């Protein structure tokens, strides 16, 4: 069973979470591409804490005794997914930075040589 205090805490926490997301988006610290998933997460959490019936149903469906455990279970799965997704993002950024670094190195060499040629022509 979910206690009343836990529900209140959950609602307050989720509202704070959504507020932080909106603030971050407003200040441009969170790209739209990544903010959407967090925003949807916040909405889902809000619904679950406002209408605990949803949670009760899901808990019953997968055969877990306490709703709190369902929250933990789904939460951990979700976090794992997010981390995996972030790892792919980091890998992509890594590749881009490497490629840029290599191209900058080659361009720098060309500029250096062109400048050298210019100097000698003067």
């Amino acid at each position, binding site marked *: 069973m979910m206690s009343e205090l836990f529900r209140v805490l959950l609602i307050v926490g989720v509202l704070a979470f959504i507020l932080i997301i909106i603030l971050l988006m407003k200040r441009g610290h969170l790209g739209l591409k990544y903010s959407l998933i967090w925003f949807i997460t916040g909405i889902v959490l809000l619904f679950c804490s406002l209408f605990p019936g949803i949670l009760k149903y899901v808990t019953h469906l997968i055969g877990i005794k306490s709703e709190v455990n369902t929250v933990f279970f789904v939460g951990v799965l979700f976090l794992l997914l997010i981390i995996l997704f972030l790892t792919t993002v980091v890998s992509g950024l890594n590749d881009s*930075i*490497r490629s840029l*670094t*290599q*191209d*900058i*190195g*080659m361009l*720098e*060499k060309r500029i250096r040589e062109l400048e050298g040629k210019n100097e000698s022509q003067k």
Partner: protein
Amino acid sequence: MKVLVIIPAYNEAENIVNTVNELTSECPDVDYIIVNDCSQDNTKQICESHGFNYISLPINLGIGGGIQTGYKYAVEYGYDVAIQFDGDGQHNAKYISSLVEPIEKGEASLVIGSRFIDKEGFQTSFMRRMGIGLLGFALRICGGVKITDATSGFRAVSKDLIEFFAKNYAQDYPEPESIIAARLSGFSIKEVPVVMNERTAGVSSINPLKSVYYMIKVTLAILMYRIVGNRRR
């Protein structure tokens, strides 16, 4: 045949001048490019003051990214053969012709200089040799190639493989990983005997204490290549 020697250099201020001078006197008809991988010492200044042909990376990419820069350069300037040649004096320029020969004859796309075929010169420590043997075993099982010196950074690469490496080159453990990547993409590999020297100055990038850990990771990486395949083409 336009031949480019790629010399990766990270903190090689003490070795780089000797390396380049030996190279240019031994093989006057090949071009070279030094890739200074954001060295902390004055490698860059030395290259500049000696008028060497060099690329200087603004961020340290590690050996894989440095070598790949050389391959990109080789593609841009249309070289037929690229040689990887360490900047620390371990490799001897007089073997370059024997590395290029199988490529000229069309026998192989990747020619690796191995110090364990004739077992002459510097043979490294017993532990290292064990590790290299293990890597060779992994490559044999996963790639079906017989490689005696998988960690050798002295190798020649044909034009089509240069283009492949310019696009995707293993970053984490480049020497053994690039062998399996090339092999699984259908490139032929050959080893030729070379004699290597002990490093004349500076420190090797692989710390002996970390060697065991390195070997385990590389063996796993080779296995991963076998399982995942080379999707990045």
